[in-house]
C-alpha cells in the first residue's frame, strides 16, 4: 500500500477545501470499500481526510422528509424505527447486503460511492477503462456473468454493487452534497453519470464533493415498499439482480408505482419505462409482466449474462404481485 498522510476533518467546509484542491486526497468514512481498494492497489491516495468526526450521523424527520446523515452506519439505518415504518424497502435492502460486521462500520454516504466489484476493476494487473481510461475492457469478452445488461457501453459493462442505493432510487431520494460552491441536493437518479465513453467518471458532482446525507421525501405508498434480492448464496453476497418497489393500487388499478433494479447497470436503475407502462393498468400479473418486459426491451445482454433478463422480469412480477396482494 502506498504511504499516505491522515487528517481528521473538523468541519465540512475545511474537509471539502482539502479534498477539492488535491486529486490525491480521498475522504475516509467507514472505509469498508476504500481500505480494501487501497490494499488491492486500485486506490492510491496520498492523503486521507477522515470525515467520521463530522456531525452527519443522525436521522431526522424534517416535516415529513427523512434526512439521513452520510455517516449513519448501515446497521443504524436498517434498525431505525422511522426507516422501518415509512421505507421498509430501504431497511430490507441494507440488511440484504454485506455482513453484520461491515454494516456496523459502513456508512450511508460511502455506500452510494462504493466501486464496482468487476474482477477486472479490482485487479490492477488487468486493463480496465474505469480504472485506467483507454486501457480496454476485458470483461466484455471475459468474465461478465454478473455484469450489466442495461445502460452499458462498448467501454464498460460494470455494475454498481449497492443494495441501499437501489431502494433510494425507487424512493425518489435526493443526495445532499457539499462542494466548493456550497451545499445542494441532487436527485439520486441524476447523481450517477451514464457510462458512455468515460466509465472512469462515475458521478455528476465535481471531484472532491462531499456527500453529507440523503433525503427521503414523503411517499405514503412506501410504507408497503419491498426489496428483493437474488444472489448466488443465501447470505453475504452481492446481488445478481435485485428490485426495490412501491405500489399504490386503488379499485384494482395501479394508481402509482416505483420500481428500481439493482446489479443490472452501472448505477441503480430506476425503471421508468416499466412505471409508465403500468400506470393506470389493472394490477394483474399480466400487466406487471408487460411492464417489466417493456423496461427490458432496452436490455443488451452479453454472452454469459442473458439469464438476468428473465430473472429480472420474474423478480419484478413477483414483488409487485406480493405487494398487490397485501402483506405476505
Amino acid at each position, binding site marked *: *500500500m502506498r*504511504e*499516505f*498522510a*491522515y487528517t481528521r476533518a473538523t468541519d465540512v467546509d475545511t474537509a471539502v477545501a482539502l479534498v477539492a484542491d488535491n486529486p490525491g486526497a480521498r475522504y*475516509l468514512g467507514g*472505509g*469498508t470499500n476504500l*481500505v*480494501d481498494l487501497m*490494499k488491492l492497489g486500485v486506490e492510491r491516495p*496520498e*492523503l*486521507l481526510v*477522515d470525515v*467520521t468526526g463530522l456531525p452527519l450521523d443522525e436521522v431526522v424527520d424534517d416535516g415529513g422528509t427523512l434526512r439521513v446523515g452520510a455517516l449513519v452506519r448501515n*446497521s443504524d439505518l*436498517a*434498525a431505525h424505527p422511522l426507516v*422501518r415504518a415509512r421505507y421498509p424497502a430501504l*431497511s*430490507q435492502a441494507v*440488511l*440484504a447486503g*454485506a*455482513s*453484520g*460486521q*461491515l454494516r*456496523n*462500520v459502513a456508512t450511508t454516504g460511502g455506500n452510494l460511492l462504493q466501486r464496482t466489484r468487476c474482477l477486472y476493476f479490482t485487479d490492477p494487473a488487468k486493463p480496465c477503462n474505469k480504472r485506467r481510461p483507454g486501457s480496454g475492457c476485458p470483461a466484455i469478452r471475459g468474465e461478465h456473468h454478473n455484469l450489466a445488461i442495461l445502460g452499458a457501453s462498448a467501454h464498460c459493462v460494470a455494475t454498481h454493487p449497492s443494495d441501499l442505493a437501489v431502494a433510494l432510487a425507487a424512493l425518489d431520494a435526493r443526495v445532499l452534497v457539499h462542494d466548493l460552491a456550497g451545499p445542494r441536493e441532487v436527485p439520486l437518479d441524476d447523481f450517477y453519470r451514464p457510462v458512455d465513453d468515460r466509465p472512469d467518471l462515475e458521478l455528476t458532482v465535481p471531484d472532491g464533493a462531499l456527500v453529507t446525507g440523503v433525503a427521503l421525501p414523503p411517499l405514503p405508498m412506501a410504507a408497503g415498499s419491498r426489496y428483493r434480492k437474488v444472489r448466488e448464496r*443465501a*447470505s*453475504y453476497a452481492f446481488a445478481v439482480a435485485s428490485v426495490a418497489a412501491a405500489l399504490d393500487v386503488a379499485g384494482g388499478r395501479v394508481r402509482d408505482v416505483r420500481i428500481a433494479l439493482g446489479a443490472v447497470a452501472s448505477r441503480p436503475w430506476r425503471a421508468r419505462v416499466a412505471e409508465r407502462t403500468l400506470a393506470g393498468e389493472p394490477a394483474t400479473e399480466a400487466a406487471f409482466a408487460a411492464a417489466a418486459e417493456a423496461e427490458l426491451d432496452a436490455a443488451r445482454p452479453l454472452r454469459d449474462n442473458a439469464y438476468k433478463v428473465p430473472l429480472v422480469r420474474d423478480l419484478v412480477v413477483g414483488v409487485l404481485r406480493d405487494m398487490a396482494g397485501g402483506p405476505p
Partner: protein
Amino acid sequence: MPQLSSTVRLVVNGTAYDLEVDNRTTLLDALRERLNLTGAKKGCDHGQCGACTVLLDGRRVDSCLLFAVAVDGRSVTTVEGLAPGDELHPMQAAFLAHDAFQCGYCTPGQICSAIGVLDEAAAGWPSAVSDGTAVLDEDEIRERMSGNLCRCGAYPQIVAAVAEVWRG
C-alpha cells in the same frame, strides 16, 4: 514532508496503549504485531471471512478494514479480553461444550461476532430473515453470523453454541 505516521491511543481490553503507527497499519495489525494480541486472526485481510472480528466500542467489526489511526481513542475488546481471569465467557464455554470448531482459526472471530449478534438481537435489530422481533432460531443465527466463515464446516455446532447462550 507530509506526516505518514501518527500517535494513537487504543484502549484494548481495558488497558490504554499509546502507539506510534505508520498510517497504513490496520487495527488488526496493531493488535497482532504491536500488542502481541494474536487472538484476532488474519484470514482474508479483505473483510470477507470475519476471522479478525473484534468489538469496537461494543460493536463487532472486521479489524482488518479499519486503520488504527482512524480508531484513535476508542475501546477494543478482543477474544483475549472476554474472560476476566480464568473464568470463560459464556460464549467461550458454549463453543467448548458444543465442539464448535475444528482447527480453531476462525474461532476468536466467531466468538466475538456471536457476542455482537446477541447484543444486536437484544436491541431489536432486524435481519434479512426477520423483522427483529423473532427469537434467535437457526435461520436467524445463520443469517446474522454469515460474515464469519468456517472452512472446517463447524457451522451446526457454532449455531448450537450461539443458540444456547441466547437461551441463557
